[in-house]
């Protein structure tokens, strides 16, 4: 990865996301300025049609990396760039983008599925799932039809569709969350343990949705703890190693690719 972002995005037509030398350190001002090193020198390139599974022990910084790539965490050092063909340079630097740029990038390009659904009071499951399409200008009826189809495919019982998910089981909430995260079919998908609270049957459905997205050309980075799903979806596994940072200052790189 000695190329610049300019060169990498100009020469690699399938390159969608590029992270170089990402460090993430949390400074806890409430606790005497204690510093927690979550990531050190992580670099990653993700191409169209590729599903990279992040592996590594709990606390290795896998989620932190996904969040940095979504603009939810600010990387302490390093750069993250995302394909944007509407610009002359054909990419945007996420780490230098304004909030407005990031909002736009999340609408056009970056999708993210969190570990848990952040329920919005009083909004029905169906509306929650249809909302990302409506924000993107899809006609409301069509958006609802597509939301119904996706909820159906994820085995969310029809009687729940008109209800707000606050009282649903963990697995039901997670499937609503996945539907909301995948419905807009964004070209880059960041998936933080989407299958964690699901039973085998539904894990299977989600794995198939991810494989479908990948085969349609999505560039995917995900965290999956069960080995079945991992094997089905992954085209590449990247190990993030916590031992090299272990929360004292360390310059060690932290990624091994296999």
């Amino acid at each position: 990865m000695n190329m610049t972002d300019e060169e990498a995005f100009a020469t690699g037509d399938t390159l969608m996301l590029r992270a170089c030398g990402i460090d993430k350190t949390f400074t806890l001002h409430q606790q005497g300025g204690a510093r927690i090193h979550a990531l050190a020198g992580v670099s990653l390139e993700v191409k169209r049609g590729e599903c990279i599974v992040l592996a590594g022990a709990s606390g290795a910084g896998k989620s932190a990396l996904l969040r940095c790539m979504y603009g939810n965490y600010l990387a302490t050092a390093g750069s993250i760039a995302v394909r944007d063909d509407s610009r002359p340079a054909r990419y945007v630097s996420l780490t230098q983008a304004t909030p407005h740029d990031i909002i736009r990038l999340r609408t056009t390009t970056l999708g993210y599925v969190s570990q848990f659904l952040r329920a919005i009071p009083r909004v029905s499951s169906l509306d929650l799932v249809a909302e990302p399409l409506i924000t993107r200008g899809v006609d409301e009826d069509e958006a609802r039809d597509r939301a119904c189809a996706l909820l159906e495919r994820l085995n969310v019982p029809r009687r729940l569709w008109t209800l707000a998910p606050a009282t649903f089981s963990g697995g039901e909430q997670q499937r609503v969350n996945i539907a909301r995260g995948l419905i807009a079919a964004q070209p880059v998908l960041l998936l933080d343990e989407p299958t964690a609270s699901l039973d085998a049957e539904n894990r299977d459905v989600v794995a198939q949705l991810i494989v479908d997205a990948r085969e349609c050309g999505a560039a995917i980075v995900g965290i999956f703890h069960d080995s079945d799903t991992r094997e089905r979806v992954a085209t590449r596994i990247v190990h993030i190693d916590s031992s090299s940072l272990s929360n004292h200052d360390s310059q060690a790189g932290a990624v091994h690719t296999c």
Partner: protein
Amino acid sequence: MNALLKASGLTKRYDGRGGCVDVDLDVYPGEVLCIVGESGSGKTTLLNALAIRTGVDSGALAYRTREGDTLDLLALNEPQKRLLSRTEWGFVHQNARDGLRRNVSAGANIGEPLMAIGARHYGRLRETASDWMTRVELDAARIDELPSAFSGGMQQRLQIARNLVTGPRLVFMDEPTAGLDVSVQARLLDLLRTLTSKLHLAAVIVTHDIGVARLLAHRLMVMKDGRVVESGLTDQVLDDPQHPYTQTLVASVLPV
């Protein structure tokens, strides 16, 4: 300028203390910006300064109109200010009573802003008022009742209808959910969220409630002692706060 509203170095002090100091901000069309901070942090002063309801000591403030003209808000005369607040803006007070006329009916409260910009057809005014009551989830059959006949949460929704009926592009809100029961708050928040997105409305909302900010805001500004200490994308500021004060604020929220 692309922004709808743009402030630079805005300062308003009271006898050399308090108020807001050197604030830069911009609001884009359709964007919801929340200003959070504790009592006395200067957020309401800032809101009043932005809405030119109070004079400022220094700084610049510009607004882009429907016609695409850029106005220097600090140079407007009173009639120009009134026109702007009737045609392009709304202002929702924390206390509904400050934003409603107590001695006229709910329907008249909604119809009045339209009459102020020239609407005269009684039947149509009444129809519009009734339609807006339904949109803010009030029973349209109560159109002739006085505001005092409605509960606090209902009065707040009535105030919102009165502010949105003229189709403003930018709405200022001062703690719109404070003082309401939690269940009533949720309903109001859902309503605000739906209305801002459906009407492509820009809003500047002052709140001390982080939950309100997370639900409604695209962007967040954190104020302390009159200054902006941190700003950014709402989820980034709340999930990865950088400033010591923001970290304290986020850590003080009780988990549900």
